[in-house]
């Protein structure tokens, strides 16, 4: 791609942005890894059992997602019903609901209503809820890529519905399954805020352990746990990349009668999936709203106002600062002639997304703490770290989708390069910018783990919720969660409106 000019000005912008990313986002995020070198790397028994539980939960959750998530994705992608749009929104909700609120809701539903004790089962039930949307999204995106005529060809050749699924569709969407599994596993490994609500004093996951250690002041152990979590996430990423390589699948045997009879079980399948969706995902997620109406305890004291102010302030400033750097970064990744460098930075963004948030927060606290930064600033910087990739990714995709030929024709028509950017590119990527901003904003609002790992005195809303729950003030916490739900819902509507904008453009 010939820019037509190699101006020093654009190079300066790129270098600034790239340096910003490396020193403000990436290095602080992985700083904790430096403890592995020369530091004491001891794994206590307690740590070992905590790690074991983390991995066990992630594993079980991924297996459950494999069966139910893939099945749900299949039914969803193939569905031609009018209610598909509603289902679409419903699947995203557990991802958008603030993590602490989700954890509390699940605890109140399964724990208080069904008397399931805090511990392994409760953690698993919770983790399924916020990981399965990743599986469903990833798999249904892959399924939608499959050319429908493959199924038609298979049908004319005599294959029953299940045979089509097994021999034609599954090999073609298996990469989506791998990515979905990767996301489920790592998301489960790294989640902090919600798990805090359902973990017991004895049974907890590693990220929760990090928070406890940090609150006890045990830095070396917290560092060790963080390192192990980050390295595990990286390892799984590598395994996933390896698994998505195989593209050839030749089938030699089909059992027509058996597979046809399986095809006829679709009614039963839909019933089971519907029950699962309702009972395991939707009701526990929304339960807190009902709880709140049943135990209405509205509190409006200054502490709460302050928390909301802090949360919104951080979310807003982080999104704004992030955007300033994210847009040129996205342009660099999408349009750079240096493909190796661009994909290196793209991978670095993926790594930041994979780092468990409490480990991230811990790492950041270590990094910026050395510079004696103000606590609020450190919280803001940690939020900047995990929201930055959320801004860069959709904008990169949007820029990649804009055919460079459009920019070229504008240049040929005599527009200056600056004019091309502002009058051609910017309007076309504006929906992605808005969508990315909303996602970053909501993520910052709802994040718990990193903030807990960093804060001592400053209380964002999620930290406040955790505090209230730990003090036994459940109904007050419930009320705050309810407010967060409403705010989230409003943002979700705005997000959907920008998606419509995208289609119209």
């Amino acid at each position, binding site marked *: 791609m010939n820019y037509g000019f190699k101006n020093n000005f654009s190079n300066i912008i790129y270098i600034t942005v790239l340096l910003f990313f490396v020193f403000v986002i990436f290095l602080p995020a992985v700083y904790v890894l430096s403890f592995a070198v020369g530091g004491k790397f001891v794994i206590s028994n307690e740590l070992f059992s905590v790690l074991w539980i983390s991995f066990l939960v992630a594993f079980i959750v991924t297996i459950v997602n494999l069966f139910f998530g893939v099945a749900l994705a299949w039914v969803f992608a193939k569905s031609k019903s009018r209610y598909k749009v509603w289902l679409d929104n419903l699947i995203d909700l557990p991802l958008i609901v603030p993590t602490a609120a989700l954890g509390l809701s699940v605890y109140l539903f399964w724990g208080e209503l069904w008397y399931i004790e805090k511990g392994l089962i409760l953690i698993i039930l919770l983790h399924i809820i916020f990981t399965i949307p990743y599986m469903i999204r990833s798999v249904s995106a892959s399924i939608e890529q499959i050319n429908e005529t493959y199924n038609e060809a298979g049908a*004319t050749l005599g294959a029953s519905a299940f045979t089509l699924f097994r021999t034609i569709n599954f090999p073609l969407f298996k990469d989506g399954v791998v990515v979905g599994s990767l996301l489920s596993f790592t998301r489960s490994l790294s989640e902090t805020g919600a798990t805090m609500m359902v973990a017991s004093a004895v049974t907890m996951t590693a990220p929760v352990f990090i928070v406890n250690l940090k609150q006890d002041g045990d830095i070396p152990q917290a560092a060790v746990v963080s390192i192990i979590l980050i390295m595990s996430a990286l390892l799984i990423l590598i395994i996933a990349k390896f698994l998505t390589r195989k593209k050839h699948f030749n089938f030699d045997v089909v059992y*027509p009668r058996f597979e046809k009879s399986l095809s006829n079980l679709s009614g039963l399948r839909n019933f089971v999936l519907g029950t699962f969706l309702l009972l395991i995902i939707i009701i526990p997620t929304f339960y807190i709203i009902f709880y709140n109406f049943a135990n209405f305890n509205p509190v409006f004291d200054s502490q709460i106002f302050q928390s909301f102010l802090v949360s919104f302030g951080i979310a807003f400033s982080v999104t704004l600062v992030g955007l300033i750097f994210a847009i040129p970064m996205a342009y660099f990744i999408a349009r750079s002639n240096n493909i190796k460098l661009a994909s290196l930075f793209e991978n670095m963004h993926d790594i930041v997304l994979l780092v468990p948030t409490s480990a991230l927060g811990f790492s950041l606290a270590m990094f910026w703490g050395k510079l004696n930064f103000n606590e609020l600033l450190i919280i803001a910087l940690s939020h900047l770290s995990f929201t930055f990739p959320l801004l860069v990714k959709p904008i990169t995709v949007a820029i990649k989708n804009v055919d460079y030929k459009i920019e070229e024709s504008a240049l040929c028509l005599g527009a200056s390069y600056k004019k091309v950017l502002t009058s051609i590119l910017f309007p076309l990527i504006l929906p992605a910018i808005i969508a990315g901003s909303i996602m970053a904003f909501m993520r910052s609002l709802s994040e718990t783990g990193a903030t807990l790992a960093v804060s001592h005195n400053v209380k964002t809303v999620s930290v406040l919720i955790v505090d209230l729950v730990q003090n036994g003030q459940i109904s007050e916490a419930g009320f705050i969660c309810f407010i967060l739900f409403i705010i989230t819902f409003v943002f979700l509507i705005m997000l959907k409106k920008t998606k419509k904008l995208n289609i119209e453009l």
Partner: protein
Amino acid sequence: MPNIELKKITKKFTSINEVTEGEIITAVDNVNLKIKKHSYNTLLGPSGCGKTTLLRIIAGLENPTKGKIFFDKLNITDMPPQERNVGFVFQNYSLFPHMDIWHNVSYGPMARNKFTKETEKYIHNILKIVKLDDRSNAYPSELSGGMQQRVAVARAIATKSPLMLLDEPLGALDARIGTALRYDLMKLVKEYKLTAIHVTHNQEEAMTISDNIIMMKRGKIIQTGTPKEIYEKPNSIFSAYFLGRCNFFRSEMQDKNTAKFQGTIIKLPKTYQGKKAVLAVRSEKIHINGELKKENIKGIIEFINFLGEKWQYIIRLSDGTEVSALKRTPHKAKVGEKVSISFFPENILVFDEPEDFKEEKSV
């Protein structure tokens, strides 16, 4: 080997397009059709005429809104495609990208669990005939368009279905390759004694390989017959225009045997009742006369196109009508010269003047 019969087949779609949402589109309109076994049939028509929809209904990939389909007197209207035993060749071949050629071609017998040693030999034979037996381990992405098309056909034949349905199989290929492959298709169908229904919008393709052409427009069948029958006796302006080049002269009748066009008297081959008529003459039957005889139709040569084996003269008449004349040897007239044209009565086709001539002629 089924004789296929379609009775009153109608297919309506509800539009989900944002602009025309809710509108009902009739893709196939009350089609009645009989297909003889072992024949090569072409569904010919312009884009959007419903030919592909009709083909898909026969295959079972779409359900008709109304009507019935019979294979050898058996009503198969509600039968799913898996059970109809038809071989379908898709426009983009639809070869399974994750399987090699061998497994693509043997998918049909394998999916029905009818893969025996004999089947293995049979498939080897088919691959040999389509000249791809040395590429059976290759994957579709490694093959050219022409090769993929042959694999798609082989895959349909491997199922031993007596009926082969082809949806614009040559549409995605270079003209040269398509022209060569159409003969291979016809030979394969004859060799395996199949019945073929082939959808195309290319009239030259239809004329060269069909035993029987079924012409469609806007969901209806306009005419069926052999290529020669339709070419020599088109039943409508559409049929005359779509199959072969044709010139139209919108004339007024003088009496039952004569018409008048731009002052020229034209004798008709037989009597015609009516005040107005459209006279159709094929391009190759137009004679160009240099002398401007008073009684002939006059015009000016607008273009002369050298097409290799023939010359095409585009002549603009004084009322704006464009006439295309084809000649084997060039005429001495040049571009811009005034010429007159004439034709013999036996080469005139006579049609009623339609309400909307442009629409009737449109493809």
